[in-house]
């Protein structure tokens, strides 16, 4: 499963090559090499503080936004290193969408303006296609039927679960190649969580999805592949322990630590 550094170009796949992430002097993620299969859902699981979210934020160059944060190593998107000197973070983020832990719709914008914000604010939306983009994206995020009669209402008038699906619609509207989800259900109630999980099931097959989750049942339900991270007890950095097909990871993992974690013996 783990390819070599000089792997041939991988279409719409994401390949992480010997990646290290730091917050100032703190080494948060140590030497992770991992391939995210195209058009499949990969779950990253592991105990709190193991660097799951940090790793995810390295995939769209959002990690470096934090003061003092830096990254070493490569992330190949479609074979192209997003950390190459010539790569532009803003363009990378356009291709790698992200959904956050807490729903973060833009509070001053209406529902439809939130959906089109990625296109409008990057100057690529013609008026004629606006309606179409709004409907397509909201349908893709399974929110259309609930909001079609109030597209101009403030985004903040929606419930938490609806706001999260709106954020997914907003991310999908720019037609990303990869969708990153950072514990997208951790702030949602069980029913809203179920809806988002159903949505992920529908999106799988269209997008390369990487989802960080605390919830092992969720990982088992929604993902094709699973990567397990934990904290290396010697130097307190996050490491990748094992990755593989979700079925295998949850039934007969190779590593004892993975088995302990997925069976609930620690973490």
């Amino acid at each position, binding site marked *: 499963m783990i390819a070599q550094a000089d792997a041939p170009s991988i279409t719409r796949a994401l390949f992480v090559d010997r990646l290290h992430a730091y917050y100032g002097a703190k080494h948060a993620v140590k030497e992770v090499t991992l391939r995210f299969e195209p058009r499949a859902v990969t779950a990253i699981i592991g105990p709190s503080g193991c660097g799951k979210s940090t790793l995810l934020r390295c995939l*769209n160059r*959002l990690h470096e*936004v934090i*003061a003092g944060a830096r990254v070493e190593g490569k992330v190949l998107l479609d074979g192209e290193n997003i950390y190459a000197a010539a790569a532009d973070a*803003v*363009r*990378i*983020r*356009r*291709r790698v*969408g*992200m959904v*956050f832990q*807490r729903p*973060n*719709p*833009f*509070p*001053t*914008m209406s529902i439809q303006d939130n959906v089109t*914000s*990625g296109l*409008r*604010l*990057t100057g690529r939306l013609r008026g004629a296609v606006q309606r179409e983009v709004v409907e397509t994206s909201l349908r893709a995020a399974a929110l259309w039927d609930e909001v079609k009669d109030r597209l101009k209402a403030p985004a*903040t008038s929606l419930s938490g679960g609806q706001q999260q699906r709106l*954020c997914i619609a*907003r*991310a999908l509207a*720019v037609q990303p190649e990869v969708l990153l989800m950072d514990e997208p259900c951790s702030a949602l109630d069980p029913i809203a969580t179920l809806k988002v999980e159903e949505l992920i099931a529908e999106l799988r097959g269209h997008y390369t999805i990487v989802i960080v989750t605390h919830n092992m049942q969720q990982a088992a339900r929604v993902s094709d592949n699973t990567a397990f991270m934990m904290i290396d007890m010697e130097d307190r950095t996050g490491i990748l322990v094992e990755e593989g097909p979700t079925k295998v990871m949850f039934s007969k993992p190779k590593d004892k630590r993975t088995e302990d974690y997925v069976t609930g013996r620690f973490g």
Partner: protein
Amino acid sequence: MATQAPTRTNSIMRDNYGRRRVVNRIMVGLLCLCAIITLVPLFAVGGYVVREGWPALVGQFPGIFTAPSPEGGELLYGLEGTALLIAIACAIGLPIGILSGIYLAEFGRNRLGDTVRFMSDVLAGLPSIVAGIVAYSIVVLTTHHYTPFAGGLALGLLMFPTVTRATEGVVRLVPDTLREGGLALGVSRWRTIVSVIIPASLSGIITGVVLGIARVAGETAPLIFTVLGNLNGFSGWDQPLPALPLQIYQDFINPQDPNQDYPVGYAGVLVLFLFVVLLNLGARAVAARRMARGR
């Protein structure tokens, strides 16, 4: 009940609850007293201004708001002049204040940011007469004219530190999740600021602007040697300009009718006082609306 606790702790400590209760009451009382004392000057000043100014204002209404005539220096020209000075001060002070405030909040975690923050705090405490001298040296001494621009520059200098720090404060309150939400869509930093961050903090920025205006509206010292004041109203961009605080000042030190109790001056004071009170109430109303929307 009250006797239960002491009997249990008798072995290790004396029961000093009585003393602690007295100290507590005294200190809480002291805090209340000091809070009340801060209200005294406000009501004293407000009451005095209204008592003296109201008859002057009402007694001469609406003539007080017309151009001056030989019978007395009414307030029209002063109001016009003050409005013009505030407009110039805003044109100078608001862009610098708002943009530097946004810089401090968004990018200011570095040496430059610390320096700007320190300097604007120093400037915020700048005696207003010093701002007047700066404008006087830069504009009046070089052009050899008293001009509205010199007064506007002095007021702008006094206004922008307030606006800078207020803007920084409210922009910093915008949660990082919104910033990252914009960036994660491939929106540039600047566009995220313009389209997401500023709209989310707009009411707070407006509050800061209003407070900045209130800060300078009544300034007198920096105007004396930048616009000087005159009796004829606005007479050109290279000419002295009247302003409400100057009119008040001149009316008190050199009354038109020494036997009169400075009625024009008192009316001007009341107008200025009400203007500043209204600006502050307006700022509070905007801020309250922001709170009501949970931002």
